[in-house]
């Protein structure tokens, strides 16, 4: 019996050595990514995807990707992590401070990557990431993922300046108060045209408006060093009151709460236009202008979309809502990866941030999904392409590039071939540089509060619901304050106390 066992064990050892020898060049990596083109086909490596083939040639890694529609990614994350035997090896975690991220990291679902990121010799690209952003990801002082870099100062307002000109705002408003005045005047243009384009996802709109108005983001610290929720700030209430006023003036679609975030573009990209302004990431603003140029014959030399950000509030203070913390989620390596395989996986992630990796993941392959024109810039279609050829190129890109950029971390900066600038794109990029100083943060972002992990999300949901009801005129100020009082009573006070303790200890 003993002999048999030892024979079996040595055979297993031999097999594993052999498979490892093969794995040195050839690694199959199971990856789970959010899918933004779930309505489009996907070509896998076996089906002959040229981009995955190029990645394989460059790294020896065969990517086996599981796409999960973005809208259901959060749920799929929970379900995936509830079945440790069948986890993907590399996956995106969308919320770096979500309860599921923290509890899974603590339970040992992910590899500790702290040492890899510190190893600048072997993983130079990952090590080049910003420590300030990495710090936001720490769980109990250890790092369990590589952040996916995003620009800080992305958020603001974009609006149709051709309509603003009709109400006397040919020039951009210079202050928050002027901005509010412009909105209310625009609401009066036509009862069928709304001003704010809003949908079910209201956190962005309320956040941009209130922070612009001078409120803190999520939590504030008062003069006595006490932490308080942002919604109790006067400036927050003022910002919310303004949205309510605009709603009452017919400036917001009364059905906005039934519009899915996937259909957010519909109101501004409809004919005739149904909404003139959006409080959101400004890259959507230049995309809107480009869409108008392509579909409505708008003049590229005189954009009819304006980007508005970094406006001084009535006290002269400039604040920008942090659409993110310099990151949009993180890439984790699960324990489905063996300790032996881990360095190879990390090598691959490091390669993903190299110029070659970034280009393949974000732009695809030259001649397949992007083309360098004679002006030296990168385009998504061949030079001199007809509209039909542009469409074909677009469809092909969705099929073979799909949402591969979701695997991109780019912690060491954008190394992809530059795209041709447009007036708004350049303005946006300049904004990112100029305005990063105005972006505010949540002082409690990295604080670990048990109550917040357990019920923070549902408490925040209730407060947000009450704010929406307040905007829509369904409840009055007293009703809103009842909701705030409930927040305190049902766990908010515990969260504040736990945050305060950490805040005081850190100080």
């Amino acid at each position, binding site marked *: 019996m003993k002999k048999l066992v030892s024979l079996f064990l040595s055979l297993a050892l031999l097999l594993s050595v052999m498979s490892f020898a093969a794995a040195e060049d050839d690694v199959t990596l199971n990856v789970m990514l959010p899918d933004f083109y779930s309505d489009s086909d996907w070509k896998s490596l076996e089906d002959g995807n040229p981009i995955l083939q190029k990645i394989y040639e460059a790294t020896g890694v065969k990517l086996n990707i599981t796409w999960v529609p973005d809208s259901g990614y*959060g*749920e799929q*994350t*929970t*379900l995936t*992590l*509830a*079945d*440790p035997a069948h986890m993907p090896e590399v996956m995106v975690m969308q919320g770096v401070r*979500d*309860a*599921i991220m923290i*509890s*899974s990291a603590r*339970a*040992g*679902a992910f590899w500790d990557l702290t040492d890899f990121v510190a190893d600048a010799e072997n993983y130079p690209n990952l090590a080049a990431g910003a420590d300030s952003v990495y710090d936001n990801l720490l769980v109990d002082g250890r790092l369990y993922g590589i952040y996916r870099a995003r620009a800080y100062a992305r958020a603001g307002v974009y609006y149709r300046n051709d309509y603003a000109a009709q109400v006397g705002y040919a020039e951009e408003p210079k202050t928050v108060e002027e901005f509010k005045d412009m909105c209310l005047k625009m609401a009066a243009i036509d009862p069928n045209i709304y001003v704010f384009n809003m949908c*079910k996802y*209201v956190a962005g709109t309320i956040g941009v408006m209130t922070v612009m108005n001078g409120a803190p983001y999520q939590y504030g610290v008062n003069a006595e060093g006490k932490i308080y929720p942002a919604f109790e700030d006067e400036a927050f209430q003022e910002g919310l009151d303004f949205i309510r006023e605009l709603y009452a003036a017919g400036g917001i*679609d*009364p*059905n906005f*709460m*039934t519009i899915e975030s996937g259909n957010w573009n519909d109101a501004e990209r409809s004919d005739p236009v149904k909404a003139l302004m959006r409080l959101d990431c400004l890259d959507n603003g230049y995309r809107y202008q480009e869409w108008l140029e392509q579909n409505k014959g708008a003049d590229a030399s005189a954009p009819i979309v304006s980007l508005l950000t970094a406006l001084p509030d009535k006290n002269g203070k400039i604040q920008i809502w942090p659409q993110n913390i310099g990151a949009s989620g993180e890439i984790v390596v699960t*324990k489905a990866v063996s300790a032996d395989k881990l360095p190879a996986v990390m090598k691959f992630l490091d390669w993903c941030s190299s110029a070659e990796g970034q280009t393949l993941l974000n732009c695809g392959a030259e001649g397949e999904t992007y083309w360098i024109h004679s002006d030296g810039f990168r385009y998504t279609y061949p030079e001199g392409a007809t509209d039909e050829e542009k469409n074909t190129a677009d469809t092909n890109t969705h099929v073979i590039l799909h949402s591969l950029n979701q695997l991109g971390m780019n912690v060491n900066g954008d190394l992809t071939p530059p795209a041709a600038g447009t007036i708004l794109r350049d303005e946006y990029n300049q904004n990112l540089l100029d305005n990063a100083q105005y972006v505010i943060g949540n002082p409690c972002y990295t604080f670990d509060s048990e109550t917040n992990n*357990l*019920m923070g*999300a*549902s408490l925040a*949901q*209730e407060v*947000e*619901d009450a704010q*929406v*009801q307040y905007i*829509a005129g*369904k409840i009055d100020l007293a009703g809103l304050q009842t909701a705030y009082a*409930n927040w305190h*009573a*049902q*766990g908010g006070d515990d969260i504040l106390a736990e945050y305060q303790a950490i805040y005081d200890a850190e100080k």
Partner: protein
Amino acid sequence: MTKTNAESAVLPGKKVGYWKKLKLDFLKNPWLYLMLIPGLVYFLVFKYLPMWGIIIGFEDYSPFLGPFKSAWKGLYWFQRFFSTSKWMTYLSNTLILSFMSIIFTFPAPIILALMLNEIRSIHYKKVTQTLLYMPHFISIVIVVSITYVIFGTDGIIYKLTTQLMGRSIDYLGDPGVFRWMIVGQNIWKETGWGTIIFLAALTNVDTQLYEAAMIDGANRAQRLWHITLPAIRSTIVLMLVLRMGSVLDTGYEHLILMSNALNRSVSQTLDVFVYENGIKNGQLSYTTAVGLMKSLVSVVLVVTSNKIAHALGEEGLY
């Protein structure tokens, strides 16, 4: 059936133990017991064994530690749920919606079946029946989308009622309307399909009874009341008791699709709570405990309704 030796071996009047009785019965019908085995195994493997999963409702369950190594928490999650002031909202939302559906959705197929039963033209009846089954096959997602289109502020029904009543009703946001929308959608979708079983029961009614009643001068309403309804009474009661078992299953997808910030105060049922906290926020232990509590309430409802069925002189479930 003739008495076997084994049975006659027991003296009359002597109290026989349960195991002894089972043994005797087994000896009497060995083949029947053999045939029972597959069913028994099915229930053990697929119904009773997975039930041990509820153990995670008493632990701080982590999938990476497994059910045996996760920390034991006892009744912590139950206490936690009842210590929040929201549990009453969840429970009452669940109960109100459930009983509204019993009161309004349950009788609908019976009424429709009776109406169909009165149709004389056999072709018209068949076509109508087929058309009535159709909504059952439409996904609830589509039903909700259609609702959005016709009840939204651009929708035909919204505009019609605004014109007729002179004031607008916020069909999609008003918490007072929410439950009626849910019940209405369910009636629209499932009533036709629900008639099948009652129509089947109606075909078994003896036509001679109708003829006799007609000779005695009974009109249509009287025939309906005194012959048809009593004839399908046991089917109705049986369906009702079955329905009680799942009455708390409000389902979450329908409610989530219809809910938004304006009506969340009434759309949050226990099922929605389990989905939001368990699937979306990953609190597996907490939501297992809440789900278990819901099941206990369901058991109480089934037992009670079965008792009521017996009291009404019907057979009930068991």
